[in-house]
């Protein structure tokens, strides 16, 4: 039993080491792409950034830089798409937020959000405060803190100290459980809920996945939609204001 656990831990460290080792090459490509951007060779920069993505690696900086390249090339749809991707991975970066806001200014569609009960907005703000990736840190740190406090409590001798420690343990535990719950929600959303951005300059949304069906409305480059369903070549989307319909999937870039 002890041996098995030891092998497991060993494997984990080996895997972690492998994943670190592989990224060395990507770093070079990333720096090269940055140089291209600085020389205003945006197409070249895009190509290199995409190369890293094609190799299966990502981080919010690549997406942010790609968004900048597309913004410079006046492709608002792609710019919004990549800024949104960056924002998804890193929700509190001021640069990402700023550039996304600027890119959104150049969008034609101004989707008005229906007013919502303020508590829902608060809940959303709390829930989306960290990205799922960041939540892993939050949850593990809180967990470690709770356990640490619990261990101290185990060895504490004085009654008063034990009482104080127990309140800390309970508080830390509640906070940890709360964020773990949010983490679970976010993972569920991450798996089920996907957003997309319209990449073509004008795209008609139909009432059914068929070009002959009625036009419901029209979306323009850069509009952010929620994906609901998929069918060969078509995607069912909905807007925050409640409108929904089918759109050709090649017109969308999934965030």
């Amino acid at each position: 039993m002890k041996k098995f656990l030891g092998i497991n831990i060993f494997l984990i460290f080996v895997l972690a080491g492998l994943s670190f080792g592989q990224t060395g090459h990507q770093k070079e490509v990333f720096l090269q792409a940055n140089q291209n951007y600085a020389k205003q060779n945006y197409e070249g920069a895009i190509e290199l950034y995409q190369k890293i993505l094609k190799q299966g690696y990502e981080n919010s900086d690549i997406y942010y830089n790609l968004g900048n390249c597309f913004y410079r090339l006046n492709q608002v749809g792609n710019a919004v798409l990549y800024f949104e991707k960056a924002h998804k991975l890193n929700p509190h970066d001021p640069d990402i937020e700023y550039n996304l806001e600027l890119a959104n200014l150049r969008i034609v569609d101004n989707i008005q959000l229906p007013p919502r009960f303020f508590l829902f907005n608060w809940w959303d703000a709390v829930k989306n405060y960290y990205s799922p990736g960041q939540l892993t840190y939050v949850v593990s740190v809180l967990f470690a803190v709770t356990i640490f406090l619990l261990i101290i409590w185990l060895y504490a001798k004085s009654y008063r100290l034990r009482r104080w420690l127990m309140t800390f343990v309970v508080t830390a535990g509640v906070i940890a459980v709360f964020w773990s719950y949010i983490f679970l929600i976010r993972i569920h959303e991450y798996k089920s809920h996907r957003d997309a951005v319209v990449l073509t300059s004008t795209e008609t949304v139909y009432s059914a996945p068929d070009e002959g069906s009625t036009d419901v409305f029209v979306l323009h480059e850069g509009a952010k939609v929620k994906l609901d369903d998929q069918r060969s070549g078509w995607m069912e989307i909905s807007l925050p204001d409640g409108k929904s319909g089918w759109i050709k999937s090649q017109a969308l870039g999934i965030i």
Partner: protein
Amino acid sequence: MINRQFGFSILILLVTFVLGFSQDIKITAHVDKNPVGADEQFTYEVEVSGASQSLPDVDLPDFADFAILGGPSVSSSYQIVNFNMSASKSYSMVLMPRQTGTFKIGPAAITYKGKTIKSNTVDVTVTKQSGGSSQRRQAPGRSSRGSQNESDADLSKVLFLDVIPSKRTVYVNQEVTLRYKIYFRTQITNNEVSKLPEAVGSWVEEYPIDSRPKIYTENVKGVQYNVAEIKKMAVFPSRPGKITISPLELIVETVVRRRRRSTNDLFDNFFSDPFGQVVKKRISSGPVEIKVLPLPEAGKPDNFSGLVGDFKIHSSVDKQATETNDAISYKVNISGRGLLQILNNLPVEFPPDFEVYDPKVNQSVNKSGAAITSNKEFEYVLIPRAAGEQRIKAVEIPYFNPQDRRYHSLKIPEYKIRVAQGKEVAMGVGSGAGLSKEEVRLLGKDIRFIKEDVAEFRPIGELPYENVWFIVSLVLPLLVLGAAWGYRNHLEKMSSNVQYARSRKAGKHAQMRLKEAKTFLNQKKAAEFYSAVSRGLIGYVADKTNQPAAGLLRDDVKGLLLKSNINGELESEFMTCLDEADFRRFAPGEVTDADMKNFYQKSEKILMKLGKFL
């Protein structure tokens, strides 16, 4: 006395009345014939007389029930009799009844010295037949003598009006063409429309007619007539049911020849008034009833707007490719038999990115053919505001063709227009309007620079919990917690549970004794060595079984060992070892170093074995 007085007073009253009256104005109205035949004319005359030199004009009554053939003609006269001047003025109107019955001609009125004086009203009775004896008694009119002998029936044989509808049963909005023809065998000098046909609940289009209609001959029941088409109109009934088109009425002046009753007189025609008499005659076409069928429900398209006829459509777009803010013209022309008035706008759906202006509509109705044909052109000006491939969807405009009694549709094909991004002139205007203050502040700003620091790359699509470090960070604290828990429990037992503490410490104590023994071994003190080993062995068993070590004898140890289920071999090994130690302790002379070393190793082994059982 009283009578005389009374008579005198009346006389005075009369004189004053007459005096006053003679200065006043008198107005009377009368007709020259009463009763009047339905197709006869008569004269209505209003006479105003008074002492004044300037007689006021008369307000003539309303002759709603009669057709006015002439007048008003005014004649006036002055008379001076016994230095009394009197003037009279007469207004005469030539009228003709429209219907039979008794009609009231209201009072004529004059305003004289601020007073309104009204004449009497006249009741006119209109009979089917001509006025009979009363005619002769009245002052002769222009025509009275002519119609005296000519009976009404005779006249209708030589002169009548007919209407021929193209159909008696039509669908809603289908055309019925009405031709009004006048049949005559006499000379018509003049004709005048007194009443136009009315078709309530229908759209009427008039065909143009020559002012001098072509006259041709037609045989009606064996009699040859001259025929002139004097009116042609198209009626489009707008609702199903029965509609009645009221008759056309004409007043015709015709020349009739007076005839004697004996027609065998050879000279009759010659001698009797060779120029004939001019007679005014009212003729009516008679009403037309038309049955209007509702449009069939079977196969009726949902978006049917009521278009009936036979149409063609032509549509065009002036360019297939354009730039944003560059106008496109979209034209649709519909033409064919039937009315297009109903079609107010086309059900075209333009893409929302097009700014669409109200269409310019040109509509014309062509009446030169056998049926009414219409032409309607819609021209839309479209301004694309966003780039991309814009589609103006195909449109179907349904119509009903009464010929084959089916619904058809006019099809406008789909137009695809490629809109390229033009110069962004309108962009600022279009999008600037809805911007908030914050957004306006950002408008002129540029994006921030890229991130140049290399951050860690993660596999794409890796779910957060799939990260190894995350799993480690969750498992590791739990392991630490478990260990800490176990150790704390151990410490607690050590301090509170003597048996546990002694048992846990037994090995340590035994080790200590053996260590002690080893030092004795090195110092070659055999008695001390064996004593230490013996104490270690006994102490170990005592610690493990929680017995006081001090008074423990050999047999007690044996009993304890037997109690704790140790196999017999180990027990006897232990006991021999203990016995040997006791024996050597008290007879130390004969032991060698090697014996002591052997014994030390043996007892160490036994203690290790024992530790597994106790």
